Every structure is written in structure tokens, then in C-alpha cells.
């Protein structure tokens, strides 16, 4: 049924969903703590910054790979 999900597209969207899950699912309450302070920051802040960075980087990868879709064939014009 989902034959249009190429492996690259599947990996990208799974990664995006996973990052959103780490940022917005109830799992965030597990990270909701001050200790350990890392780089002078509470753990909760570092958790958010880490997953924000991961997802932003993933969006860059998505752009560079045309969001997992094949680029248009020359004959298509």
C-alpha cells in the first residue's frame, strides 16, 4: 500500500517523527530535571537543545536529498 515510501523517504520521516516524539511526547517529563547540569545548563534545557539541533540537521539532510523523492527525470519535460 505504501509503495511510494522509498527507503530514504522512510528513514527521513521516521527520523523526523522520532525527534518530535523526544521533544513533545510525555517522555519529556523524564528529561524534566535540573541535574545533571551539563555545559552550565540544566539537563532539561540541554535535552531540548539537543533534539532541536538533531531535527534541524535532519531538515537540512531532507533538503539536500529532495525529501527522499527522486529528482525529476529529464524526459519529464
Amino acid at each position, binding site marked *: 500500500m505504501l509503495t*511510494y515510501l522509498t527507503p530514504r523517504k522512510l528513514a527521513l520521516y521516521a527520523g523526523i517523527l522520532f525527534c518530535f516524539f523526544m521533544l513533545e511526547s*510525555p517522555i519529556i517529563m523524564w528529561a524534566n530535571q535540573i541535574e545533571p547540569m551539563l555545559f552550565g545548563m540544566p539537563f532539561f534545557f540541554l535535552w531540548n537543545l539537543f533534539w532541536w539541533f538533531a531535527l534541524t540537521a535532519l531538515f537540512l539532510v531532507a533538503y539536500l536529498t529532495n525529501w527522499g523523492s527522486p529528482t525529476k527525470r529529464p524526459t519529464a519535460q
Partner: protein
Amino acid sequence: MTGSLLIITAFMVIPLLVGVLSARQSQETSEDFFVQGRAMGSIAVFFTVAATWWSAFAFLGSNATFYTSGPVYLTALAWNLLFGFMYYWIGKRVWFLGKRFNYLTPSDLIGDFYNSEALRITVAAITLIFTVPYLQIQLTGGAYLIEVASGGLIPFWLAALLFYFIIIIYVWIGGIRAIAWTDVIYGALLFFGMMYAGYYISSHVGGPAALFSQLQQTSPDHLTLPGPNGNMGYPMWFSLFAITAIGAFMGPQIWLRMYSVKSGKLFNLMPFLLGLAAFAYVGSVLSGYSGVLLEPNVGNPDQILPIMLMNYAPYLLASLIMAAGAAAAMSTANSQIHAVSTVVTMDIYKRYINREASQARIVYIGRLSLVGFSLAAYIMALTVPGVLVTIGIAALAGTAQLIIPTIGAITWKKAHPSAALAGLWGGIACVLLMTFGPLSAPLGFHAGIWGLLLNAVLFIGLSYVLHRRDTSVVERFTQARYDYDAEYHPERLPAYSQPATSNVNYQ
């Protein structure tokens, strides 16, 4: 004082000059005035989307929320990413359909796909009613900043009046082109202002690490959910994430910024750019938390940033950063005023009052609408009190409801007009009853979340039960979706069981 007045004056005059310059490229057509002839380039698109999306809500509201309620506003990192993702996934499809069928407003797309006048009117009403309060908070936020930056010399009522006077002039002259050009300046100012304000103010408590360390000793509740007041836990964390991103994305001002884009390729890059820009919120974390240590007893939390700037930064620097905050407010307000005037002109005037209106007449009505809505927002700013974030979320919860019929229109041929209408009315009723009426939102989630849930259930359930008879409309959209996939996602073509005829040869 003279220096800060000069900065305020420059802040007022520069957009006027930009408006005049941009008007030299304008044509007197509705498509040029409202969506720049669908030919907006990449730099202008990024800055106008980002500056429109980031508002007084972000510049002042973020500091105020960190100051009063702890880290719940940190969910903004994720909502920026969600906004960016929607701009790619939904926005690109909306852009494609807009270009093909000449849409200018949200009602154009939704009304056309569902082939329903009732739905068209409902969508126009939602966009108008729920955009005005959000517009009001831009005016309030911008006027706060100008009032404080001028040392009280320009009172709130006058600051708000000046603010809107400037917007009306340059939008009147240059339409969306003037807005996009000024947003490049405003956007740069806004991100610089947020970051530098945080960096500078936190240096007064020894820098970021010392700031967090002191907060851990004196007010640890500020560093974890549910915050010092105990009311900002996970439900609000998730509600802010979903409602803010979806509500802002469905605002008519962002719809125009989907229709205006020249090339579809730009949508692919926007999630990354908009996500990256979210780093500016680190500045708000530092400013808001520095306020907890330096100015713990501020009455109106929305004024915490201007107050700290005045007390701890050199006067000129404080004025410059506050001008950046006013830029955040103005860059959203100009887009909103322009967008609601588009809705009034195209969805009400042209469709129901004067179908044969000339291009010049349409543009003229659009300009008059600018003045009317500016006046309404100005009066509300002077008479309706409230905290920026509270008003903002209530308004966003309303526009967020449009996401359900929109996704239906761009992806699902079974989507039924009655289902979309029932879903929208159900969702809006839920938001209003839980925000202003006798019901309270269960489990701590915002009324907008429950509205979206009810909206989705009604929409999907009724669409499965009911069947559309207007097959020609459904086929027209199926063909458009096929062509979209042929152009951008050729791997999806096998999913069409009966391929629509297409002039693009991928088979």
C-alpha cells in the same frame, strides 16, 4: 533621550521609504497587491514568513513566560520546527493548487474544493474574527516598547496610533511587496535583538552558566515543568506546541505567503531555515531568567524585557533592541492587516457585493479595508486588557481549526463538505465554550486541542458516511494532485489506482 527618539524616528521612516521604493515595481492588479504576482523570491519569502510568524508574542511573550511560568515556552523550539515542516508539506501543496486555480485566500481553496458557499463564508469568518485579537496583541506589544523606549514621552495611545499610521501608509502604497521588503529589515533586527538582549542582560548576573546556577539556588522551580506557579505542566507544553504552530500557520497572512512564492523548490528548504532561526529563543531564556534574579517584582510581565533594558543597558542600545521588538510586532501586524483586507475584499466584496469589480476597484477596496481593520485593532488595544500570550493562544486556537479541512482538501478525495462544516463548527464551539463559556478544558490541555480533536473526529467520521455527488470537482482536484506528484513526487504515481490523464509523461 534624543538618541532614542532618533532611533524611533528612523524605525518609523525607513519602512515608509521602503514602501515608496517597492511601489515603483507595483502593478495595479489584485494579484500584484495581494500576492506579488506569485513571484516572490527566496530571500524575501524567508524573511517575510519568519518575521510574520515571529511576533510580539515571541519577542515579549517569551520573556514574560520564562519570567513568570518557568521553562514551558521552551517548547517553542519544537513548534518552530513543526511550523517549518507544515510550510513544506502543506504549504507546497497549497501553493501548487493556488497557482493552478488562482487562489488568493484560504476560503478560495477550501470553498473551491468542497464546493460549498457555507464553508467559504465560515472560513472567511474564522480568519477575520480570530485574526483581529492576534493583531491587537501586536499593537499592544509594539506600543509598550515605543512608550518605554521614549521614556514615556510618547504615551501608549500615541505610540499605537503612530505604529498603525505607518503601517497603513506603506501597505497602502506597496501591498505585499512593501511588506516583504520591510520584513527583510524587521526580520534581521528581530533576531539580532532577541539574541543580543539575552546575551547582554545575562552578563549582569555573570553569564549564562552563573545565571542557571543562581536560579538553581534561589528559584529551582523556574527550571523545570510545571514552573513556579505549578500550572504549566506537560498538557500545556504540548498544547502550546500544537496550537501555536498550527494556529499561526493557518492564519491568512501565512496563506498569502504560500500563494506568493515563485518556485516550489523554496518550500523544501524552509523547514531547515525556520528551525535554525528558533535558536534566537535562547536569548529569551537568558533575558526572562535574568529578570527573575534582577527584577523579581515587575507587575506586568510583558514589560519585563523593556524594563530590564532600561535599567541595565546603555540607553541607546536599549532603544535599539526595543526597536527590534517593535519590529517583531510591526512585521506581524502589517502582514495581518494586509491579509484580513485581502479576505474582506476577495471573499466578501468581490464574491458577494460586486462580482464585476475592476482590478483598480478591488485594490481600492483592499486599501480601505486596511484602514477599517487597523482602526478595530487600535480600539481593541486601548480598551481590551490582557496578557499577550493568553490572548494570542485563544486567537490561535480558532484559526488552528482550519487545518483539518485544509489537509482534507489537499490529500483526500472522500473529504465531504458537510463533514468539513460540521467539524469546523464543532471545533470552534468547543474552543469558545472552553475558553469563554461554562466548560473547562479536561486534563489541563488547552481548549484548542479539544477543538481539534472534535473537529477531526467529526470530519473523518462524516466523510466516511457521506458521499460526494459533485464528481467533476473531485476529479479536478484529483488531477491537480496527480500533476503535483508527477512534478515533485514521481514515486507516488503508482498509488493512483486509475491515473488521471496528464500532460506530464512519467509512465
